[in-house]
């Protein structure tokens, strides 16, 4: 299996749009769903687990069968996200979002076009309930950004 690390990157992506494009490029290297899923799962595994004491009900986004916790902090005008899930696939999906939005300004996050996820081709392989959870997730991350925007 070709791991994304092996792909030569010419310049480091900085903006949300650039990061989205990088993700899409990486995913496009994979032909079949197994590899794509494996890529997402591996992203999930790599995402730093959220400390158990942060996994509180107010940080919980309840999905159909799995649970997602989302936390954020604000420093130097940038938003930092932390997320976790009891489902590895869900966690991998969140990792996609975190990778794209983490370390950006509230304004950029609020203006970000999150429909890139439709171009990943992952959604076709997702149960609609999971796809819904993704939309919910993106919404929640923007909600957090709104809270910081005024500061």
């Amino acid at each position, binding site marked *: 299996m070709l791991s994304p690390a092996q792909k030569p990157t010419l310049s480091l992506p900085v903006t949300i749009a650039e990061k989205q494009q990088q993700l899409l490029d990486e995913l496009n290297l994979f032909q079949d769903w197994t590899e794509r*899923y494996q890529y997402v*799962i591996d992203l999930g595994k790599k995402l730093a687990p959220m400390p158990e004491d942060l996994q509180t009900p107010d940080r919980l986004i309840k999905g159909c069968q799995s649970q997602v916790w989302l936390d954020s902090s604000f420093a130097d005008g940038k938003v930092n996200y932390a997320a976790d899930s*009891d489902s590895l696939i869900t966690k991998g999906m969140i990792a996609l979002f975190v990778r794209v939005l983490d370390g950006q300004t509230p304004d950029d996050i609020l203006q970000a076009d999150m429909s890139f996820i439709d171009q990943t081709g992952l959604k076709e392989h997702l149960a609609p309930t*999971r796809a819904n959870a993704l939309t919910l997730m993106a919404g929640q991350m923007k909600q957090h950004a709104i809270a910081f925007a005024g500061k």
Partner: protein
Amino acid sequence: MPFDPHSIRDQFPILASEVNGQPLVYLDNAATVQKPRVVLETSLAYYEETNANIHRGTHHLSQKATAAHEAARDRIAHHLNAASPDEIIFTSGTTDGINLVANILTGSISAEDEILISALEHHSNIVPWQMLAQRTGATLRVIPVLEDGTLDFGAFQDLLSPKTKLLAITQVSNAFGTPVPVKDYISAAHAVGSLVLVDAAQSVAHKVIDVQDLDADFLVFSGHKIYAPTGIGILYGKTSSLENLPPWRGGGEMIKEVTYESSTYNELPFRYEAGTPNIEGGIALAKAMDWLSDLGLPSVAAHEQLLIETAAASLADVEGLRFYGPSHRQGSLSFNIAGIHHYDLGTLIDQMGVAVRTGHHCCQPLMNRLGTTGTVRASFAAYNTMEEVEKLVNAVKKAAMMLA
């Protein structure tokens, strides 16, 4: 000669379909089972030749439809060995049947009484009794489950007392496939004067049911779990247990005479069949039961048993895999792999064309008791094959590797 599932697969057009480019392996039969062509054609023929509203009609089609509907009741009574077709009440499903019984018992239960259910019950056999307990002030008690997914019969005996007015118990657990020796439970409950409702949703397609031998007061199941359509089910009610109970739904068919001041209610079974019933559903259900009985239910069950045992044996060496339920299971095989979420496992094996169910299987309290939020459940029907078991096993192993 053992039953050969290949001989019937072409009766199920859906089994030839593909999922994600893979041939469908349908192992979610405990949720709902696929329908043979002969059942679908029965519904179709009904609409092409017979359809009319039943009872009270003078004209030819109405008489023909009524005769077909009542003949279906007779067949179903025969398959369950009911003492009379009047004991067969058409409902819209298991859940509807349980709610019917829970509601008509309202006046028979008082605040000091106890209602007994088991820890293996489906939400549909929990919530109506909770609601009955709330209405009446009675106490709901639960027969505990042991670590191996069987019920604790000793604890059940200790729970029984003259206060016990109803025992509601499943014949096979939908979450784990645990078979419950309901006959023993029924006779013990009867000994303290309690009525018994048997939830046969998961047993009816896998074993021959003899309501007289069981001596159940009430027994319920859904058509869609026994090769018939959704929207139809059966409540068997022993005449002596049912005849003095009040009606539930009011409307056409269930009454004899109506004035604005009062109504007199019809005889059994019509008293409990208000409004136009699912006419073709009842006819299709009788056909499905005929079909299964013609196939030979015991040999179908033996075949399913072999599939479950083979699957269990082949999965046993997957690292961290834990089975739920006892080693002898009926219909369903339920498991988890340590460190892997059942939802992830289910999602990946669905990608490989294998349809299983994941989650709590409408048994949250049972899952809580066993310390999990859910399991992966593969469940089997007459048309499943050994090759499909192999695909399941391979899919689980591949998914486990991906998620490890």
